[in-house]
């Protein structure tokens, strides 16, 4: 379970998150929607452990443990996964080498045995097939020369292999055509489980047609302005964010 309590965050002295409170239960799929510049991506980065931000107050508890003092890799080993809005290209690092290094680094951190290469290959192959990732892509350098859709699918493959307890999807729909969106959404839906929570950050309701959330939170001016069910997203699609921006102010 993710519990964010009274989180206040700034960057270069400029406040971004303001006394934010949010709870995502085990197995819950929570969507966070909101206009540009309200701190949605900041929230995802702060949970994942990016250092550019200053946490002024509050705590982020995952299963009762405060993540804030932990390095990003330790958070990852504790179950945090961030699917990036724009997954990075890493020239010179073969995709398979990277997947093996990531998986084994997390296992090592948790005191588990390293995966053998054949076992890893088996898992990667099975995951790749489901996400329509061609074997050729696995031989190339990570994300280098991949299309937007291919990069997103590669991120979801990583999520499937790393089996996080909290998966954060930051604007996963951006840059995806309808077909790619369907594949990615199917990949995410296949990973829904009573033990795994999702935090889905998006501008548009469209993604939520494919990944139907349990709860929808509207974020405005650095805090949660309203919480509701899946129908709240449909409502927002009609009315826009104007009311919330005004309310929060």
């Amino acid at each position, binding site marked *: 379970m993710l519990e964010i309590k009274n989180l206040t965050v700034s960057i270069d002295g400029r406040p971004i998150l303001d006394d934010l409170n949010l709870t995502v239960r085990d197995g819950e799929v929570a969507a966070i929607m909101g206009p540009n510049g309200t701190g949605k991506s900041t929230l995802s980065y702060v949970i994942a452990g990016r250092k550019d931000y200053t946490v002024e107050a509050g705590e982020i508890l995952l299963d009762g443990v405060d993540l804030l003092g932990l390095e990003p*890799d330790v958070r990852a080993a504790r179950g945090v996964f961030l699917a990036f809005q724009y997954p990075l290209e890493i020239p010179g690092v073969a995709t398979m080498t990277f997947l093996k290094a990531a998986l084994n680094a997390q296992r090592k*951190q948790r005191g588990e045995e390293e995966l053998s290469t054949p076992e890893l290959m088996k898992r990667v192959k099975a995951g790749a097939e489901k996400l329509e990732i061609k074997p050729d892509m696995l031989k190339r350098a990570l994300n280098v020369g991949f299309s937007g859709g291919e990069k997103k699918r590669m991120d979801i493959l990583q999520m499937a292999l790393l089996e996080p307890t909290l998966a954060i999807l930051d604007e996963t729909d951006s840059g995806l055509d309808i077909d790619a969106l369907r594949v990615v959404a199917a990949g995410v839906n296949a990973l829904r489980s009573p033990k795994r929570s999702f935090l889905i950050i998006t501008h548009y309701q469209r993604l939520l047609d494919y990944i139907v959330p349990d709860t929808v939170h509207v974020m405005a001016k650095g805090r949660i302005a309203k919480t509701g069910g899946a129908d709240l997203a449909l409502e927002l699609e009609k009315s826009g964010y104007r009311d919330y921006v005004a309310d929060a102010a």
Partner: protein
Amino acid sequence: MSAPMTPPRTLAEAALAEAFDAALPGLPGGPDARKLRETSFSKFYDAGLPHRRIEAWHYTDLRALMRTAAPLAEAPSADSLAALREKLAASAPGCRLVVVDGVFVAQLSDPAPEGVVIQSLASVLAAGRPDLIALLAAQEFGGADTIVSLNAALMQDGVVIEVAPGAVVAEPIRIIYASTACEPRASYARSALIVGAGASMRLIEEDFGAQAAQTNRCLIVSVGDEAACDHIVSMTGMGRSSLRIESMIVRLGARVKFKSFGLIGDGGVVRRQIFMRFDGADSEGTLSGVSLLRGREHADTTLLVEHAGTGCAGRETFKYVLDEEAVGVFQGKITVEKEAQKTDGRMMSKALLLSDGVAMNNKPELEIFADDVACGHGATCGGLDENQLFYLQTRGLPFAEAEALLLEAFAADLVDELLDEATGAELREKIVCWLSARGAAPAAGDAP
């Protein structure tokens, strides 16, 4: 009236003059070779050790860096060669040629593969074949450099490899440099590689264990029309107080494919200079290298690429990883002669600066006399990409591991791009070895 100024001699220059006089009677070769040695030494001595006011040596001031001249290495003893033979037993595949302290050791070397003639420099100088002597003298191109002249004066030995026209040599020819000297010694090797028209071959030069304290090596390469030649040099066996100068003079015929890759890892002061000239038309010449530096190491790569033939493509890419207080130098000069129309030249240097104490000096130069050419150069200096580091960390890699993975990727991608799988794997292993040692031990060192 004023008398010409004679610069005051440094201790090292005086010691080199003494060493030359003492060694000359014992150095190999007949009267022609002796004459070459004397002229070359005069050229060196008149100019003295190159210093910061000599443009090509501005960033590697040898007069300041070379405080003493180590005595010439003696011929290795039978015992030390026997010990070396055992250690060499499990070396990598290919035709192995062993040079110990500048001297070719036939009994540790393999016979030449089919289509190849291999001789020691000493025997070539003694036999006095005019074409080979002229090639070895390299007077027309590259020979003007004073350090190349010093090498010609003191050359103890080396290997002369002649690949017959049309010969396809599948396994690499591997020159292995070793040293048995316990005290600081100097060695001067000069080798030549002559690739006949239409032939193809691969030459690997590598260090085996620690090297002599001061080495001045020169390799002269001549590639005939339509030949393909790959050259790989790996310089990894130098101590922190060593001085190493490596010169390569390359002349390419027409429709040639020539590739050279150099790895510099560990060493006090390293200067690698390459003089490459496109004599013929429509050839491709690729020069590349990776320098991995830490402590107070200093590595200088200086290129002179001359385009004289039409339609040739030159590619020069050099990468540096600099840590602690290391200093990197890249100087690349491309000249395009009036007749060399349709030249396509691209030069790039990329440096990763891992600490505030490092320095990188980049000096690209283009000198173009033809009017229909495409030439460009670029240089980058910077740290690792923080976004990439964060991305890898969010996948579970601790910071140090993420950093090592990115460094390996930076340094090794040229290896993957340019070399065959087996050679690439050998070099990648050396890069990984350097990276894993990084930070593991203090690397403070003194300049020679």
